[in-house]
C-alpha cells in the first residue's frame, strides 16, 4: 500500500514497511548516520539519524532508521533543535573515536571540533569503537559466521569475540573491517596470511594452481557453499580463468 507523508514540507510517497531514513534519502533529504547499513536490519545505535516526526498533532524526536513510515506524518529532518541534538551525540561519539576521519568530518559539519568528554574504558579499550554493533550485525546477518558480539552492558559494554579469544567461527572475510564506520577493526594481508587485527584472527591464504593467494580457505569454502560452486573452482584465481 502506498502511503503519503511530508518531509520538510514536501509531499512524498512511501511503501508500507519502509523505514523513514530510506524514504527520506531516496527523496534527496540528507540525514547523517554511522550505524546504518542497507545490508542489515536497522538498529538505532548511533542516534545521528534523529528527526522530528509529527503524528496526530504530537511532535517527537526519533531515530529515522528504525521508524517505520506511517501515512499522514509530517517529518522535519533539519532544524536548530535537531542540529543541537546531533551535535551533542557527535560530541559523545568523538570522545570515543577522536582519531576517526569520518567522525571528525561529520562532527565538524555540526560545529563540533573537540569533545568535553573522556572516552569510556581504559588502555586498549580506548580503540575508537563507538559500540554501534554494525560489525557484529554484518557478521551474523550477512556472513552468517556469528563470530562477534557485545559483551557486558552499560558503561562496561564492549564489542568483541566470545571469551575475548581468536574467534573460531571467523572466516577472516573482512566484512567487519569494511563496514566499521570508525575503521577501528583493521585488516591486512602479508606473507600469505590475512589478519583481522581487532579480533586477533589470522588465517593463511589458500593458493591457486599457479601459486597465487587471494583469500583464506574458510572464506573460499563459504563462497563455494553460498554460490554452489565446484570443489575445485578456486584452484584458479579470477584472473587465471
Amino acid at each position, binding site marked *: 500500500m502506498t502511503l503519503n507523508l511530508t518531509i520538510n514540507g514536501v509531499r512524498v510517497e512511501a511503501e508500507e514497511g519502509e523505514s523513514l531514513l530510506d524514504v527520506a534519502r531516496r527523496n534527496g533529504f540528507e540525514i547523517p548516520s554511522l550505524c546504518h547499513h542497507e545490508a542489515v536490519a536497522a538498529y538505532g545505535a548511533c542516534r545521528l539519524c534523529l528527526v522530528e516526526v509529527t503524528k496526530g498533532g504530537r511532535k517527537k524526536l526519533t531515530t529515522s532508521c528504525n521508524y517505520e513510515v506511517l501515512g499522514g506524518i509530517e517529518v522535519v529532518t533539519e532544524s536548530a533543535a535537531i542540529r543541537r541534538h546531533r551535535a551533542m551525540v557527535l560530541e559523545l561519539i568523538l570522545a570515543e573515536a577522536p582519531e576517526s576521519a569520518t567522525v571528525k568530518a561529520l562532527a565538524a559539519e555540526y560545529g563540533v571540533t573537540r569533545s568535553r568528554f573522556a572516552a569510556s574504558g581504559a588502555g586498549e579499550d580506548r580503540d575508537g569503537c563507538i559500540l554501534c554493533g554494525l560489525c*557484529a550485525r554484518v557478521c*551474523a546477518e550477512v556472513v552468517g559466521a*556469528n*563470530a*562477534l*558480539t*557485545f*559483551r*557486558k*552492558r552499560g558503561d562496561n559494554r564492549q564489542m568483541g*569475540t*566470545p*571469551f575475548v579469544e581468536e*574467534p573460531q*567461527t571467523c572466516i577472516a572475510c573482512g566484512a567487519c573491517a569494511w563496514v566499521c564506520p570508525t575503521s577501528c577493526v583493521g585488516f591486512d594481508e602479508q606473507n600469505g596470511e590475512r589478519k583481522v587485527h581487532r579480533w586477533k584472527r589470522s588465517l593463511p591464504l589458500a593458493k591457486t594452481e599457479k601459486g597465487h593467494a587471494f583469500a583464506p580457505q574458510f572464506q573460499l569454502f563459504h563462497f563455494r557453499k553460498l554460490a554452489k560452486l565446484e570443489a575445485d573452482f578456486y584452484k584458479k584465481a579470477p584472473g587465471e580463468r
Partner: protein
Amino acid sequence: MELSRVDAIIERNGSRGASLLAILQDVQDEANYLPREALEHVSKRLELPLARVYAMATFFQAFHLEPRGKYVCTVCMGTACHVRGAARLVEQLERDLEVKSGGTTKDLQFTVEEVNCVGACALGPLVIINGEYHGTMTADRLTKTVEGLKKAEGGTR
C-alpha cells in the same frame, strides 16, 4: 561440571533458544558459576552461536564466568549504607580475606562483592553473607563473623 548435568538441565527447560536464560540460571545454580565447557555445550545443543550464549552470560550481573566462593559476602553500597561507612566494610573484607572486591579467595571459600542497594536501608550498613542479612555491621563484627566462618570450615576438614 559434568556435561550430562547440562544435558539434564536442557531437557528440563526445553532445547530451544527461548530457554537459554532459564538454562543458564539452572547451570549457575548447580555449578555456582557458568563454566566455559557448559556454555559451549549449551551453544551446541541449542544450535545457537556461541557469541549469543556468551553475550547473555556477560549481560546479566547475576551470571559469573569465574568460580565463586562457598561464602559470598555482599556489601551494600547504597546511599544509606554508604554514609554509614560501607566502603570501610569492603576494605575490611579485602584485608581480612586478602582479595580485591569482586574477587574470590584462592581456596574458593570467600567471594567479596558490592551491590548498589538492596532496599534494606534501615539496617545499614548491611552485609549479606550467602543470603543472610547482617544489619548495622561494623568492621570489628565483620572480622569476627568471617573468622567464625573460617573456623567452622577448618573444623569440618
